[in-house]
């Protein structure tokens, strides 16, 4: 039994690339889910997806200029992500259109521009790498970058936490207190971009969102409190990233999709069996007789 556990859980970690991949996954799992929880609570679940596309042209430009250098590609990604966020924000403010429509337009432009740039400069193998990442190719530089960005996000989120909570509930309250309207929102979007850039090396630009949103939407079925949501989301992400990595090692699967599919399985299971709003919870509520104590 112990031998089996050892063979399944520990033996893969004898390899340097697995160690680095695991640490990278765990670092991302601490930073991404809290952002996902806030995106979900603000009704912006799909904004993460849009931002993920928005970082693509920057990553591609970095790739064209510097080859496969993670720091340069990340820098490009951050810049283009922020640019799209700012453009979308100002277009929606100027025109009065909703921010998501501006965001949708810009992310489609970015996606097309990014794919065009990558194809101009490289092969389809490169494109696949940028789009879907490869957690097993994380080197020490990449690991340091991912760990640094993740730490920065956790600290920054702690600093703006109260402001973010107040703003989600009642944006006018903060404005009334003299906090500039876009400041908290902009910082938050900036953190989302940072997180996606940290995630693209391991999961690819498209799937980096998965580690952000799926744990958050899963947590919704288990807790109704903010602390609970964040805690559970982090837990789900930790399990999914390490479990997915091991699965991909043993079954010879691509690591990114394995991680996200594991998180996805957690979501579906929670939708069936979770404590709140799940199918099971609904069934139970309906079956409870009148006068029975309310489940909390």
């Amino acid at each position, binding site marked *: 039994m112990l031998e089996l556990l050892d063979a399944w859980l520990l033996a893969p970690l004898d390899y340097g690339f697995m160690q680095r991949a695991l640490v990278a996954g765990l670092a991302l799992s601490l930073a991404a889910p809290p952002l996902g929880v806030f995106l979900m*609570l603000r009704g912006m679940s799909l904004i993460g997806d849009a931002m993920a596309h928005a970082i693509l042209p920057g990553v591609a430009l970095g790739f064209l200029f510097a080859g496969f250098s993670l720091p340069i590609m990340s820098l490009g990604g951050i810049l283009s992500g922020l640019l799209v966020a700012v453009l979308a924000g100002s277009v929606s403010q100027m025109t009065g259109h909703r921010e998501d429509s501006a965001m949708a337009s810009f992310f489609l432009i970015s996606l097309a521009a990014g794919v065009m740039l990558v194809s101009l400069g490289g092969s389809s193998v490169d494109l696949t790498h940028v789009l879907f990442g490869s957690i097993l190719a994380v080197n020490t530089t990449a690991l340091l970058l991912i760990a640094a960005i993740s730490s920065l996000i956790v600290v920054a989120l702690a600093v703006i936490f*109260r402001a973010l909570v107040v703003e*989600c509930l009642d944006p006018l309250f903060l404005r*009334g*207190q003299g906090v500039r309207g876009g400041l908290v929102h902009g910082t938050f979007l900036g953190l989302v971009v940072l997180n996606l850039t940290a995630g693209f090396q391991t999961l690819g630009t498209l799937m980096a969102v998965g580690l952000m949103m799926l744990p958050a939407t899963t947590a919704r079925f288990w807790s*109704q409190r903010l602390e609970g*949501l964040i805690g559970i989301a982090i837990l789900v992400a930790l399990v999914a990233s390490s479990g997915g990595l091991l699965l991909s090692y043993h079954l010879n699967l691509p690591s990114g999709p394995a991680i996200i599919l594991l998180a996805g399985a957690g979501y579906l299971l929670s939708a069936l069996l979770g404590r709140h709003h799940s199918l099971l919870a609904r069934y139970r509520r309906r079956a409870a007789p009148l006068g029975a104590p309310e489940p909390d």
Partner: protein
Amino acid sequence: MSRLQLEDLTLARGGRTVLEHLEGRFQDGAVTALVGANGAGKSTLISAIMGMLRPVAGRVACQVPKERRAWLPQQLALDLTFPMSVEELIMTGTWPSHGALKGYCAAHYRRGREIMARLGISHLAHRQLGELSGGQRQRALIGRTLMQEAELLLLDEPFANVDVETVDVLMEVLRDMARDGATLVVVLHDLEQLSRLADDMLVLAGGHGRWASPESLLERYAGQPPRAPRLPLTFPDTLDAGTA
């Protein structure tokens, strides 16, 4: 003295003038009812008083510091499904002194509990906002303004979707705030509530504002049942004829 004054104020929204040449002073330590039909410019005026809308001409002279001004929008404007407990909501009222980072100390929690007791929501302290009734939420939101020690309080239909008992509690709390010197501006549509709460009245209609005593409006509608019709949308002309 009056800490809130309108001086030849003209306001516009989206390129359309909403209010013109507003003049007058809101009494300190009193409740001023803001009355007008939908679209008459009540929210626009409130935005300008909060300093969120720049006047086209004239100015709002407000001596209350920004952090002591509180605006309670209609409940519909707030995302009350956000996971937050009543106590947490009330504690966010400490923003002027605590900002984004400073931790709450025991004294503030004690004050929070006193406020909840006064509003009759102590038993709901750890309930989530999403689980509350309209009346309970409104009590919690007023609790936040008490925590904020607001000296200028702007309320947009605070008694909409609120049970009768809550209306009584809140009216008492608001009267107490006025007695302690706060300036209150309340958007109201209900004659009975107006008669119980308001000391003064600003009527907005046709892009202009007229100050009147609540009594003048009540006299005009003396024969009507107290709660039923909401303030008729055509009243400004008749009121004008009545007071002239």
